[in-house]
């Protein structure tokens, strides 16, 4: 049976509708099924049900009287009282993420209620994958001639509010690019990831929520702040929720928090954080106060939405192999933790001062246990999940079997702004003319350099990269074995444009990790 994306959405909708409409507590909701999934705006047309519902919901909120606390202007008043003054919302401290999770959830619930569409979940703007502002927010009317409530051209506080960032122009990669996201996801603990506690906090007085003296890490200080400020109009102000793009931006911030958790990173368990209650900060759709504690806001699925990520709660019951794999990967990534018995690693460091160049790629051979290559070859093909409409089962299948990952540590490069670094596996006669469609091609990466002076960006050392070799090993070695030289990785720098000089590359060390799940 051919399965369309719409059919998949509808099935999710039926499950989600029961969860939200009956307002059952989180764990019962989990038992009932997966709640509606928040999806990327990328590729969604103006008349996609998700976009249409959001547009209609925003329109209904905007058409309420501004004096109504449940109107578009009224709900924005939760965030800021005027363009220069915040009301309840925390920035510059460790309540930034949970408070905004509850805030955008408030809007999601209102839109479900107003549009009578209980399968609606907010879409997010994945500015790393698609850095230009989403098109569905940029024109005053929709193609069928109706008012586009997601467009902004407002008159208030004695001035005109319009976005100033040019449509179609990408947000700079130095704010939102993949290396920035990697830096964020590498944060070692919650306070480095989601901004630290306010200086001197020693109790749960609500005034700490508005104290801005925490140390802002990369997530808040760079993509959060710079996307707000770059868009212009309402977005750089404390009344930023008056722009519908606010919720797409913050939904992505919220997704990154969920993603960081799903990678095995735990939230703070300090009671000064977990026990803080946002008393009377938010509003339920019936107008009553919504006052969650931070610890009520950990798992999206218990709040009535999901990002389709393996949350700790859902994975524990439904995906034991996936959870086990995450724990094994953590032992590879986190310092100070003994490696899992199911993880076997082999490493090599280049000798001398040899660098890989476009004319002479660098080859590094790693002696590995041949039996492990065979285990990778016997791994089952990965399902997309669409054929049996169960993505959780597909993720579980994907996590099962032996996989192999290469960790390229302390990678030294030159000319990074002009160079793409390609990795191949055991390719005879490798030259820059070998296409990326070659079976031996593993993947590519770039190295982020910010500013005219180059340097290391915000990292502490030369960058490191992890590359999944599983598919390449299956293609290149099949049920055979590497030669006596071992598993051979090759590093080939190529120019990103024909008219630029190409750099060189030399990993400080290569680790090959076989993970059995």
């Amino acid at each position, binding site marked *: 049976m051919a399965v369309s994306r719409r059919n998949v959405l509808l099935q999710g909708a039926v499950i989600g509708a029961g969860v939200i409409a009956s307002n059952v507590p989180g764990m019962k909701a989990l038992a009932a099924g997966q709640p509606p999934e928040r999806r990327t705006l990328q590729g969604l047309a103006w008349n996609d049900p998700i976009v249409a519902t959001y547009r209609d919901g925003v329109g209904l909120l905007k058409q309420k009287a501004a004096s109504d606390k449940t109107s578009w202007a009224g709900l924005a008043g939760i965030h*800021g009282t005027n*363009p*220069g003054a*915040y009301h309840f919302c925390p*920035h*510059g401290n460790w309540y930034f993420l949970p408070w905004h999770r509850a805030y955008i959830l408030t809007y999601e619930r209102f839109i479900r209620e107003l549009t009578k569409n209980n399968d609606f979940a907010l879409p997010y703007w994945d500015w790393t994958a698609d850095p230009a502002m989403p098109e569905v927010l940029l024109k005053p009317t929709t193609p069928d001639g109706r008012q586009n409530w997601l467009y902004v051209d407002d008159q208030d506080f004695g001035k005109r509010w319009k976005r*100033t*960032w040019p449509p179609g122009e990408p947000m*700079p990669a*130095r*704010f939102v690019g993949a290396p920035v996201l990697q830096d964020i996801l590498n944060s*070692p*603990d919650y*306070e*480095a990831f989601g901004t*630290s506690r*306010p*200086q*001197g906090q020693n109790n749960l007085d609500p005034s700490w929520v508005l*104290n*801005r*003296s*925490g*140390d*802002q*890490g990369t997530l808040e*200080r*760079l993509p*959060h*702040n*710079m996307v*707000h*400020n*770059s868009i*212009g109009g309402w977005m*750089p102000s*404390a009344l*930023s929720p008056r722009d519908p793009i606010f919720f797409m931006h913050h939904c992505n911030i919220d997704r990154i928090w969920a993603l960081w958790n799903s990678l*095995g*990173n*735990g*939230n703070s368990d300090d009671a000064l954080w977990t026990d803080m209650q946002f008393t009377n900060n938010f509003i339920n759709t019936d107008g009553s106060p919504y006052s969650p504690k931070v610890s009520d806001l950990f798992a999206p699925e218990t709040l009535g939405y999901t990002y389709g990520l393996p949350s*700790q709660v859902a994975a524990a019951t439904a995906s034991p192999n996936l959870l086990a794999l995450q*724990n094994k990967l*953590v*032992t590879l990534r*986190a*310092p*100070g*933790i003994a490696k899992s018995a199911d993880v076997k690693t082999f490493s090599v460091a280049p000798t001398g001062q040899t660098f890989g160049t476009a004319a002479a790629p660098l080859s590094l051979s790693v002696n590995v246990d041949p039996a492990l290559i065979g285990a990778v070859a016997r791994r089952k093909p990965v399902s997309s999940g669409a054929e049996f409409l169960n993505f959780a089962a597909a993720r579980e299948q994907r996590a099962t079997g032996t996989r192999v990952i290469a960790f390229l540590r302390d990678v030294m490069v030159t000319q990074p702004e002009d160079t793409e670094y390609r990795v191949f596996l055991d390719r005879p006669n490798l030259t820059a003319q070998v296409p990326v469609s070659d079976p031996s091609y593993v993947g590519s990466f770039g190295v982020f350099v*910010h*500013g005219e*002076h*180059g*340097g*290391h*960006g*915000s990292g*502490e*050392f030369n960058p490191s990269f992890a590359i999944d070799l599983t598919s390449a090993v299956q293609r290149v070695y099949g049920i055979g074995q590497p030669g006596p030289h071992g598993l051979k990785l090759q590093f080939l720098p190529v120019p990103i444009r024909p008219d630029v000089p190409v750099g060189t590359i030399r990993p400080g060390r290569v680790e090959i990790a076989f993970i059995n799940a």
Partner: protein
Amino acid sequence: MANAGPRRAAVGCFLVLALWIAAASAEEGDQLRATVDQPARITATEAAPGSNGAATSRRVVVSVTHYRPTDDGSPIEVVVKARTAGGGEQDIGSFGITPDREFTSTAPSTTQRFSFALPSEFVAVLAAGKPVIFSVHLVPVRGEGRGAALRVGTIELH
């Protein structure tokens, strides 16, 4: 989370080893104020460098006590750089200030703070008791950035 304990312990080992109160340094005076034409410059040394040159400080926290956005509302990026005496400047990272409105900190609770990993070469320099010169630049994202200004309160090494 089962693995959170060891990581928390590791993080807990980061002690504040030096606090350089920029405002107290009379000779640097206006060098704490940044505009698009003139970065703020602050020299930092560890108060108690590691014994035998061991690496100690690994993060730098920049605090901002005053900020004024551009006259035309165009966005500004704040870029933090570092160099050793006689060395070239290197980017440490960047940040924005939200909301993009003028503020002057009148209390520690309203001072905004931004945290950055310190590249290993600077960790080593500080551990040897030598100074690192930090500069804070206002860089227009669009437009010319006229009117924007920022005042650095402190540079802390953690």
